[in-house]
């Protein structure tokens, strides 16, 4: 048996199922408001937690990690939950981030407990570092968004459509950014070579 937890609505202003009015009520000690909040959002938290735990083979821990998330939301008189700002993010998105973070912490704790660093092959411990050179591209040559688009296209091998979804912009804008950024970089490095060259 399970409880369906709606996510599509996502309306934090409705006052039903975990809206602003309900949040105020549960902060005031209304247990029924808390029950509605849980009923409405348990599925989001559970899904975010499982998404992290299942690939790590720890799906059995999902229930405990959900409890951990609930504990984080409630502790110190709902300090974390009071931090939620409906103007800045949807409740479901915010809860997904919080639940994901709790699951990552859980896996990290388990890894610390069970892994002996000495027994790990070097390949596991190796990280793929971004090697920062002392020479820097000039500030303003690329905008952070152009850099992110290049990172998604080249390092993550995404299509312009996929990159657009991550950044939250139009695929055509991604294509245009890609093109402009390469033009700028080409010009910059050519000038650099021209200056450094014989």
């Amino acid at each position, binding site marked *: 048996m*399970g*409880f369906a*937890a*709606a996510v599509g609505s996502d309306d934090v202003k409705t006052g039903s199922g975990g809206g602003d009015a309900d949040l105020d009520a549960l902060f*005031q*000690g209304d247990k029924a408001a808390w029950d509605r909040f*849980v009923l409405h959002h*348990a*599925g*989001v938290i*559970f*899904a*975010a937690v499982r*998404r*992290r735990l299942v690939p790590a083979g720890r799906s059995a821990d*999902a*229930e405990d990690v*959900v*409890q951990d998330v*609930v*504990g984080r939301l*409630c502790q110190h*008189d709902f300090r974390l939950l009071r*931090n*939620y700002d409906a103007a*800045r*993010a*949807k409740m*479901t*998105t915010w809860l*997904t*981030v*919080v639940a*994901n973070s709790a699951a*990552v912490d859980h896996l990290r704790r388990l890894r610390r407990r069970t892994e002996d660093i000495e027994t790990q092959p070097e390949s596991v411990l190796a990280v793929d570092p*971004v090697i*920062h*050179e002392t020479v*820097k*591209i000039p500030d303003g040559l690329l*905008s*952070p968004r152009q*850099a*992110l688009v*290049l*990172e998604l*296209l*080249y*390092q*993550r091998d995404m299509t*312009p459509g996929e990159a657009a*979804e991550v*950044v*939250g912009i139009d695929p055509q804008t991604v*294509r245009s950014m*890609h093109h402009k950024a*390469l033009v700028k*970089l*080409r010009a910059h*490095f050519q000038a650099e070579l021209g200056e450094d060259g014989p």
Partner: protein
Amino acid sequence: MSEEDNKSKQGAALWRRARAQLPEDWQRLADDGAPDATLLAGYLDGRLAEDEAARLEARLAGEPALLDELLALRAALDAGAETAPATVVTRAQAAYPGRPALRAVASEKPSLLGRLLGGLVGFQLRPAVSALAAAALLLGCAGAFELGRYQAQQLDTTTQLAETGDSDVPVEFVISGL
């Protein structure tokens, strides 16, 4: 496919070179630690102010681990919610910490006078309570010792009577009389 769609080898080489030379200011942003939930959620929902989004994007371009997190979150949101088992819901509902008003009363600090009196009485009484307990224990021990001694004397007397006394009196009777 348009020219902008083409991810060329040259483009990849240019970006490889550029990403190793990202501006110092962007790299310093990583010193702020992990971005908080509201910031990441706001970015995922496209609700951040332009400057906030730019700061986060500068970090995302240079911090592969942070970009991994963002991509994982995006995938989780795209996948949507699951049906939570009943036990998860009931346990979560039972975790409600209670009414803040009651908790406030429980943790309310006494007034200055109350604290002063309480401290004074507590300070005066605490050693007295210990002393009384020690005295009671001592008295108890002494009483038990005296009682034991008395009973031993009685037993001694009775035994002597049984050994030396009148043969008409059965020994069992005398002893059972104790």
